[in-house]
Structures are given as structure tokens and as C-alpha cells.
């Protein structure tokens, strides 16, 4: 849209959350005395933005740093370098009160709801707790709010008095989601929210997340390793490898024309839902050889080069940065020196 009286084009809405050069380091402890033995850069300089209402799918294998990144974006783990801005304001610059208010709007849903819930607290208490902690609404109105939250995630009031062990995995995850919704968040980081659930329950939870996004206008960072689920739920996708993003882009661009050799390997290795009359189903595509390198000692230069069939000398010397090769879809970026040649 161009305004009639000037060249200034209508800009995209300002991002809800921006991360710039975020790094997270963990001290690696080894041996019986757990002595510090080095430092893992779990997140090694990640920049990304989340627009209001969008869902960014974050995929990567174990050790890629995707959970650490998710936590760092909420300052549940303070980044060792870089900056996270929420509604334009750096989280690091907020005083305690302002950070608490920001926290209400920044919530997390965890992989294992059994571990995230106190086994001795009823469902009602678990969902009410964030209301009490943040002092939201009059205390007399909180039971009603708890009932409404449960209804929102598809749980009948009969579950109010139940304990986590009396619930199925899917029901526990619904409680975890209700807890996250209690403070009226704008952004929810969902860290592998379905990977601990049975197959027939996963689709229910993904549908719930999609419904809530629609009715509440939520923004999601959806961390998952199930690529088909990521494709289903996400608007954009980021692929993470050993602490760095190697490719980001609009969902369909990334899934149809993956640019990074690692993204291609992930897609090739993912089991495919069998489709009638199609020979190519299941795991039939040649897998990349070799294991992930030790995250404590990543390769120099490009972090995929030790497994990459296209690696050259340059890949060992110079770490590729995210860039948009000519002819790719808007917003599609890749960190590969050779994206053009191997396209």
C-alpha cells in the first residue's frame, strides 16, 4: 500500500520480538567432580524477528541449541551476548517491575507437561498460580477465570480437582497450555509441545494451538523436530544447526526449495506419510553420512561442512552468514557459500 501524498510505503507492523546476535554459553562439566571442562556456545549468534500473529517454526536436531534459543528469547536464560527486544524495548534494560510485566506476555509451553506441573497441585491450583503470582484480577474472580481457561483448552470443569498423575499426557499438555494462557500472553514459545505425546493425540494439540492462535491472536515460536507438523502450523521456518541458523524462510519456499544442504538432508531423512500409489514413502532417501559433531567443539567455518557433500576449502575457513541468493522467495535466506552452485 502506498499513501497517496508521499513515497513512504506502508511498513510491515513493527515486530513483536526481535533478537539480534543472541548468544548463550553453557559451562560444560565433565568427570566425577563435575569440573568445568569448557564452554558450549549453545546459541552462537542468532538474529530473528517475530511479527505479531505469526508462527515461526524452529527445527533442528538435538544439540542444535533450539531450546536454549527459545529460553533466551524469553530471558529465562540471560543471553551472554546480543539483545532481545520485546515491543521495541530491550529486555535487558527493563527494571524488575517492567520485566515482570513483560513476562506475563511472554510464556512458554514445555515438552514434558508431567515435569512442568507440580505433582501435588491440582489442575485448578496449577492454572490459578500464574494469576496469583502476577496479581491478575480480583482474587474472588480467579476461580471463574480458571474455569474459563480450562474450557478454552478443551477440559471440562470436572478436571479442576484432579492431580497431574490422574491425567493423560494430552490432558496434562492442555493444562500446561492453560497455565501459559493465564496471563494473557502475546508470545508463546512452545518447546516440543507434542513430541512426548502419542500420535493420535499430537494432532489434537496442534489443532488446539492453531485454534488459540486464531481466537487470541497469539504469536508462536514453535520448536519441534517433526518437520511435517512444523510445516502444518508455521508461517515461517528457521533451521538451526549447532547454535546457528542455517536457513530461514516462508514455509512453502523452505519446504519446496530448500537451499541449505542440511535442510535438504533433514527433509530427505524425515519419514513420509505414505501416500497411496506413490512409490516414494517411508525412509527411502539416502541419509547424510556421519554423526553430528560435538557441540562443545564445532567445526571451524560452516558447521555442516564435515557432513556436507558440497564442502570446499572456503567452508572451513569462513563461516557463512545468512543471505538471500538471487532469485529466491522474499524472506528466504540461507547461510551457505555454495547455495547458487548446488541449487
Amino acid at each position: 500500500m502506498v499513501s497517496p501524498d508521499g513515497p513512504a510505503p506502508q511498513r510491515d507492523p513493527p515486530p513483536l520480538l526481535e533478537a539480534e546476535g543472541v548468544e548463550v554459553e553453557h559451562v560444560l562439566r565433565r568427570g566425577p567432580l563435575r569440573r568445568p571442562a569448557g564452554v558450549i556456545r549453545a546459541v552462537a549468534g542468532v538474529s530473528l524477528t517475530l511479527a505479531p500473529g505469526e508462527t515461526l517454526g524452529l527445527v533442528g536436531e538435538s544439540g542444535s541449541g533450539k531450546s536454549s534459543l527459545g529460553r533466551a528469547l524469553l530471558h529465562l536464560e540471560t543471553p551472554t551476548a546480543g539483545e532481545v527486544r520485546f515491543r521495541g524495548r530491550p529486555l535487558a534494560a527493563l527494571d524488575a517491575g517492567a520485566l515482570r510485566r513483560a513476562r506475563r506476555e511472554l510464556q512458554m509451553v514445555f515438552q514434558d507437561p508431567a515435569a512442568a506441573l507440580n505433582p501435588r497441585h491440582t489442575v485448578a491450583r496449577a492454572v490459578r498460580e500464574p494469576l496469583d503470582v502476577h496479581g491478575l484480577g480480583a482474587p474472588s474472580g480467579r476461580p471463574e477465570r480458571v474455569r474459563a481457561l480450562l474450557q478454552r483448552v478443551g477440559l471440562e470443569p470436572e478436571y479442576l480437582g484432579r492431580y497431574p498423575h490422574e491425567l493423560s499426557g494430552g490432558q496434562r499438555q492442555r493444562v500446561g497450555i492453560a497455565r501459559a494462557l493465564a496471563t494473557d500472553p502475546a508470545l508463546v514459545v512452545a518447546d516440543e509441545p507434542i513430541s512426548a505425546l502419542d500420535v493420535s493425540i499430537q494432532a489434537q494439540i496442534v489443532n488446539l494451538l492453531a485454534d488459540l492462535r486464531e481466537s487470541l491472536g497469539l504469536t508462536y515460536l514453535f520448536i519441534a523436530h517433526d518437520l511435517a507438523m512444523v510445516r502444518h502450523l508455521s508461517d515461517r521456518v528457521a533451521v538451526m544447526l549447532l547454535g546457528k541458523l542455517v536457513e530461514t524462510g516462508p514455509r512453502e519456499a523452505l519446504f519446496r526449495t530448500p537451499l541449505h544442504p542440511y535442510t535438504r538432508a533433514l527433509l530427505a531423512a524425515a519419514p513420509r506419510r505414505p501416500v497411496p500409489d506413490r512409490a516414494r514413502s517411508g525412509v527411502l532417501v539416502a541419509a547424510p553420512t556421519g554423526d553430528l559433531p560435538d557441540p562443545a567443539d564445532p567445526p571451524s567455518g560452516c558447521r555442516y561442512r564435515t557432513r556436507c557433500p558440497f564442502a570446499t576449502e572456503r567452508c572451513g575457513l569462513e563461516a557463512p552468514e545468512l543471505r538471500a541468493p538471487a532469485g529466491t522467495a522474499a524472506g528466504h535466506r540461507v547461510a551457505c557459500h555454495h547455495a547458487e552452485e548446488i541449487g
Partner: protein
Amino acid sequence: MSGTPPLLEVRDLTVRFPTRSGVVHAVDGVSFGLQAGESLGLVGESGAGKSVTALAILGLLPAPGRVVDGSVRLRGRDLAGLDARGWRGVRGREIAMVFQDPATSLNPVLPVGRQVTEVLEAHTSLRGRVARAEAERLLARVGIPDAGRRLDDHPHQFSGGQRQRIHLAAALAGRPALLIADEPTTALDVTVQAQIVALVRELRREMGMAVLWITHDLALVAGVVDRVAVLYAGRIVEEAPAAALFARPAHPYTRALLASMPALDGPEPSGRLAAIEGRPPDLLVPPESDPPAHCAFAPRCPHAADLCWVEAPPLQPVPGGGEDGAHRAACWFPRSGDGADPEGDADAGEDPW
């Protein structure tokens, strides 16, 4: 029928776990056979009875589990009567098993070479340097780089994927006729999973070994096995050659599971997934009560009719499912024909890209 018995024949296997609050009917009349060199996928969600079936085959049911009915025969011989010595000749030698988590199935304080030579010494005539050389050959075969120099390394010095390879090498050392793989790739990353799947497929061909592949992942099993049996609530609800199962799923549960899985390619996804509402039934039967007589899937089935609530259907050949009756389903109203699913598979009609 031919005179040679199948390699493995499980008939009416029924396993129960008596507990204080009742009896868990974990496996309820499961029957299947496996020919030498054949592979069968046993697919189901948690609690469906797939791992319990595997453990019952090997006589390794944890307490208080008991086989209350049915039989397991290996080359025609009933395994129920085996004593400890008899089992030693079966486990590791005739039937080997690999588990989901190699971190717990390998001995953490024993060098990996030793874990393989132990199996060789138990089940073959190889000893000493010859056994060590064979261990090196096996570890190299499963893809451990520089295997000869790593025989004395311990499990923690290897990655998760490599540990699963080592576990596999130890399982294969006895040259088993049957390998039971219980979710062997579930703990692994997707690229490593694909490597292990390819490796098992190659080894099966090389060694003429039968494979019973246990998984919750219907998509994974499609590329791995010849036949698939789908378990629900302790029973097989559908069994078919893999291609037929995916082309013409007959049981509403199989169809619903397939429909609920989003696709990696094909048209741009939109709307909701076709989720199966509800959840699998609790298999605990409280004291003084009877197990439900109806079809276990009826409460979640969009097609359930009166009959389904009266009596559970037997596993029987699907009409039009091939003249040999190889495609069977436990449904009073199985779907036959071309597998077109009118229930609104959101991604139907996709094209390869």
C-alpha cells in the same frame, strides 16, 4: 499349508498384569507369524501392547505380567516350556533384541569390543583374538569409523547414533534368525534415524534375518518392512502387506491415524488436522467387573454402529483384500476398494514435488 512351520508363530497371545486396582489386559489374543527372512512392523501407540508382546516372546515379561493364554513357537517349538538353559540358546542366538535407548542397553563400564566378544563367546565357537577380530569386523560393518582402534573405548565415548550401532553389532554377533527392534530409532535424530533404518535393511538382506520392528511411527515403518500389524488396545486391528495397508487401509483406526498425519510435501496445508478425538481406552479391568465386550475403538470411531457396541469384531480377511486373505482387519465394517477416504483427509490428492 506347507509342512515347514514359520520361524516365529505367535498364537492367541494374552498377557495380563494383575495389580491391586485390577487386572491390566495388556495383550489380548494377538496372533501373527513371521517367516525366515521376513520383516513385520508392529505399530501402535503407547499402551497398545507392542513392547509387552516383544517381551513375552522372549520370556522377559516384567512382574507381575503373565502370559495367561496362547503360545509362542520358534520353528514349531513352544517356548513356554523352556528352562533357563533353554532360554540361553534362544535369546541372543535365535532371537536378539535391540532397544530404544542404547545408553541403558549397553554396559557403561565395559569396553564396546568386549560387549560384542561376550556375545560371540556365548553363542559361537569364536574365542580370544579371533573373537576380537570378528568384533572389529562387526563394528566396522555397522559403521563405526576406525573400529579396530576403538574396541577398548567405553560407550560414553560414542554419540547416541554410534551407541545404537554398537548395540546392533552386539545383537547381531550371535547371528540371530530373528531381530526384534523395539523403537530402536525413537531416541535418535531424524538424519541418524534414517542411517540406522538403512543399516538394518542392508543387514537383514545380507544375513537373511527376520525382523520384527516395533514402532509408534506409521510413516517410518512404511519404508522398512514387508508387512505391518497395527495394534490398538492390546489387539491387532489390521494386518496387511505394507503397500496394501497404506494404499487401502481398511480399519477406521488405521485410516484415522494416516489422515491425522500432516504431509511434508503436496499442497500447502490449510485448516485443521483430522485429529482422532478421545484417547485409547484404559486397559485396567477393576476387580469384580468384566472387560468391555465391544470394539475397543468404537468410542472414537465415526462409523461405529450398534453391532460394534455389542461385540468386538474378529480379525478377518478384508473383502477384496487379495485372494490369499493377507489383508485382514478387525472391523465389522471394514473399508475395501481403492482407499479413497471420504472422511476429509485434508491433504488428499497431493502430487509429489
